[in-house]
């Protein structure tokens, strides 16, 4: 087992498309690293370069301290799980599992022992003599996992291995893969477009966009301190509400900062300002204000939210999940409409650009609150929301960068800011 390092790795295709640019990533021995991003962000290309299935235009890939740029896949000692599993259709489950061992001339008895072991771990014992076509999707997925595990490689590479499963099975396998990886302690690079998978599985998560690494950090740090609008909007489900606002100093108390959203104002919590003194420099300027849905509650059900912690909104759709209720609402403030948010909306809602433009120009924003299950909010009515003003996010409208003294700098901005910078602040 060993770490995997990518040093300024770039991939330019023959037609000039830059799929990955200057990707720098240090994956420690035994670490579970998730590469996440919208489709076309270069995450799969990055993975394939580590696997040796794609040539590296520039930069260096090292596995276990060995530069492998020119090493063919078969000599890299890595195992890969493909999105469509790529099981050998002409071989039984047992032969699929033992395929690589046979190629490596492992003695027959040893192969049998290891295949049986893996089959037991994955619950495939009864299926060993079946061909892949006689398996269900979940079982095929398991065999694909088993084929990787059985080899005991330096690293696992997984390319959206769960995307072909139904929702329930996906949740189940998510936990199982994480558990197996934890038990084996094998360095893993896991590619997904699903931020929930990224958050739940990764020791660290690398968010990519258009071939560029945006931020690498532990899931919670990523969630609490996104470096820019893109990461803020991408991580979290339902997504962070992003509206335009203006920061204002209080006339009487100079230490107090207000965020004006349309006609309403939020008073920023002292703890927030203590953590992010830079916010004061933005006083009098427009910023992007991000509020996560769970930081919005039904005010009538909480005890005394102070003035400046309330927002009056008109309620749209109300989705009752049982344990919580999603209240969709419109807020009288312009939505944030930058390249970042446009891409996010496109990724999530697949809207046409026309609809997108109209939304962006609207004077009010569509938002979501994740409130108490027994709220009495009803569609078409007004609702007062209590805002946790210690957990509001701010971004520079022009650069899209977070106004957050604790957020790790994006690697692009700081050339040597790669690797583990655990900015949990």
């Amino acid at each position, binding site marked *: 087992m060993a770490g995997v390092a990518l040093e300024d790795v770039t991939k330019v295709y023959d037609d000039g498309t830059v799929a990955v640019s200057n990707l720098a990533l240090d994956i420690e021995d035994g670490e579970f690293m998730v590469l996440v991003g919208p489709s076309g962000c270069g995450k799969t290309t990055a993975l394939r370069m580590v*696997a040796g299935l794609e040539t590296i235009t520039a930069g260096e890939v090292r596995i276990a301290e060995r530069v492998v740029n020119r090493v063919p896949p078969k000599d890299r000692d890595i195992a*890969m799980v493909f999105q469509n599993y790529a099981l050998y*259709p002409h071989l039984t489950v047992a032969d699929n599992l033992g*395929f690589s061992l046979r190629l490596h001339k492992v003695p027959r008895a040893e192969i049998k022992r290891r295949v049986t072991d893996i089959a037991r771990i994955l*619950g*495939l014992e009864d299926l060993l003599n079946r061909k892949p076509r006689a398996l269900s999707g979940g079982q095929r997925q398991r065999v694909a996992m088993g084929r990787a595990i059985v080899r005991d490689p330096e690293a696992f590479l997984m390319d959206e291995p769960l995307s072909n499963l139904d929702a329930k099975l996906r949740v189940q396998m998510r936990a199982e893969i994480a558990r197996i990886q934890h038990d084996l302690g094998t360095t893993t690079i896991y590619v997904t477009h699903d931020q929930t998978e990224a958050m739940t599985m990764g020791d660290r998560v690398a968010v990519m966009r258009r071939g560029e690494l945006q931020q690498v950090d532990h899931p919670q740090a990523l969630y609490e301190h996104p470096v820019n609008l893109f990461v803020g909007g991408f991580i979290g489900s339902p997504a962070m509400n992003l509206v335009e606002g203006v920061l204002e100093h209080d006339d009487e108390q100079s230490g107090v900062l207000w965020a004006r959203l349309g006609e309403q104002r939020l008073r920023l919590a002292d703890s927030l300002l203590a953590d992010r003194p830079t916010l004061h420099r933005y006083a009098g300027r427009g910023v992007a204000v991000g509020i996560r849905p769970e930081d919005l509650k039904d005010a009538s059900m909480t005890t005394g939210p102070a003035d400046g912690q309330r927002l009056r909104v008109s309620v749209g759709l109300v989705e009752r999940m049982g344990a919580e209720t999603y209240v969709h609402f419109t807020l009288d403030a312009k939505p944030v409409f930058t390249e970042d948010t446009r891409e996010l909306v496109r990724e999530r809602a697949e809207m046409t650009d026309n609809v997108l433009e109209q939304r962006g120009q609207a004077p009010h924003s569509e938002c979501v609150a994740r409130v108490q299950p027994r709220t009495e909010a009803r569609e078409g009515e007004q609702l007062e929301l209590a805002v946790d003003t210690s957990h509001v996010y701010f971004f520079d409208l022009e650069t899209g960068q977070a106004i957050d003294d604790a957020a790790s700098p994006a690697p692009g901005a700081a050339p040597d800011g790669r690797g583990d910078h655990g900015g949990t602040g």
Partner: protein
Amino acid sequence: MSAATATASTAPIPPRESWAQRMTRAVSRGPLHLVLIVIALVWLLPTVGLLVASLRPPSESAQTGWWKALTDTSQLTFENYRQILDDPLITQAFWNTVLITVPATLGVVVIGALAAYAFAWIDFRGRDWLFVGVVALLVVPIQVALIPVAKLYGTLGIFGDISGVVLFHVAFGLPFAVFLLRNFFAQIPRELLEAARIDGASELKVFRTVILPIGLPALASLAIFQFLWVWNDLLVALVFADTSNAPLTVAIRSQMRQFGTNFDIIGPAAFLSMLVPLAVFFAFQRYFVQGILAGSER
């Protein structure tokens, strides 16, 4: 995850049909089967005719049709077969046919498969243009090559030799072989090859352990096509094989006379020459059908 949940999600295996179910199905498909049987019989009739005729003495064959033997089975005799199997001309020709057909088939399948793999999955400069060239060769009629190749063989000293006939068949079989197999191989999912490479397979291993087994239907159909074509070929053999190396087709033709025929030789010889392709066809027919369908879908 426990084994219990795994078995719970087991894919359904079709349950064994009961005897009654099978009977019901057979009856409901009766009319279709009847039509198929009639077609098969009509197809089979000439073959049976040839077989029966080959079993009749020449004196009878000259006077009455073969069906007379169906009512008068005393006519049937193995005398014709005994004679031709003793005739060195025919047995030698039979051997020659085998010696030509087997290498010509193997050669086309092996070389064709290797070339097709390269065309489908190995990146090299000018690959696509080269493939277009191969496809273009498909439309070259063999007749235009007869004279130049004959001259070439003369220089090489293999004119009249079995090796010359084999070489010619291999050369003209390859464009179609490469075309058919490349298109089949190209449809194998890329990830399958990548998985094998990551699992530790060299290109040759990928070819042997993944491509060949998966391409079996296409390989089998190609083998049948090529085998039948070479086995039944007369033109190439007539031009390039001298008398001692002539295959059955040439030998049978030499028994033709201007007035009437040597039926006691042609009959059994023709039936014998039919028997082998028939056996090959039945041995591979399972793949043959698959091979035709495969490649057209997915």
